[in-house]
């Protein structure tokens, strides 16, 4: 388990519900797992100064981001007794209502997955160089700020 190489976490555009369903189905053969936990980040149609966000366009410093995702994976496996973990993040345009981040952790027992999932998501938000350009319906934009 120690020699995991950085994987490519990024997918072009939104993450489809079908992709998520397939990912869940793939774990049915791993019968030592007793608990999964899933985080889905969805693009919110926030209203700012009477204009509504219709999409977020994501860019990233991809090499650094993939290495950071890898560091987060390693740290999480070090801290928590997980069977497996999958992270996918969108690049390019994701419309309001669509999924832009999919984090999936699995373990024999439930308590571990609750804690590990929150840890992974918070680490991603704080430490991975991804940048969101929020596009309004009139095509003007502002840069997303994580709170």
């Amino acid at each position: 388990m120690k020699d995991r190489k950085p994987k490519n976490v990024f997918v072009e555009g939104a993450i489809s519900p079908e992709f998520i369903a397939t990912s869940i189905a793939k774990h049915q053969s791993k019968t030592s797992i007793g608990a999964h936990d899933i985080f889905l980040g969805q693009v919110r149609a926030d209203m700012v100064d009477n204009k509504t966000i219709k999409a977020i366009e994501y860019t990233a410093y991809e090499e650094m981001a993939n290495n950071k995702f890898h560091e987060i994976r390693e740290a999480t496996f070090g801290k928590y007794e997980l069977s497996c973990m999958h992270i996918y993040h969108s690049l390019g345009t994701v419309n309001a209502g669509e999924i832009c981040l999919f984090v999936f952790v699995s373990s024999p027992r439930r308590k571990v997955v609750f804690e590990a999932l929150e840890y992974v998501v918070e680490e991603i938000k704080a430490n991975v160089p991804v940048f969101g350009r929020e596009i309004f319906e009139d095509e003007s934009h502002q840069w997303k700020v994580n709170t």
Partner: protein
Amino acid sequence: MSTNIKYFGLLAEITSCREESLGNSPSTVNELLELLFEKYPDLKEKDFRVAIDQQLVTEDTQITGGEIALLPPFSGG
């Protein structure tokens, strides 16, 4: 020696490019920032961090080559 810099997010809007090569070679991050603030005064007001070879560095860090990147606040997820 020239210095290659990558810009991301709103910083790339200010510089109007995602990557460029500076003719001179500043020896510290601080010197680099002075050059960039002269070239792009709007950068001064922006919150960003500098990475060299994908590691975040401080202003007193020596520049001895490597890939330099200017990174605005991260907003993934």
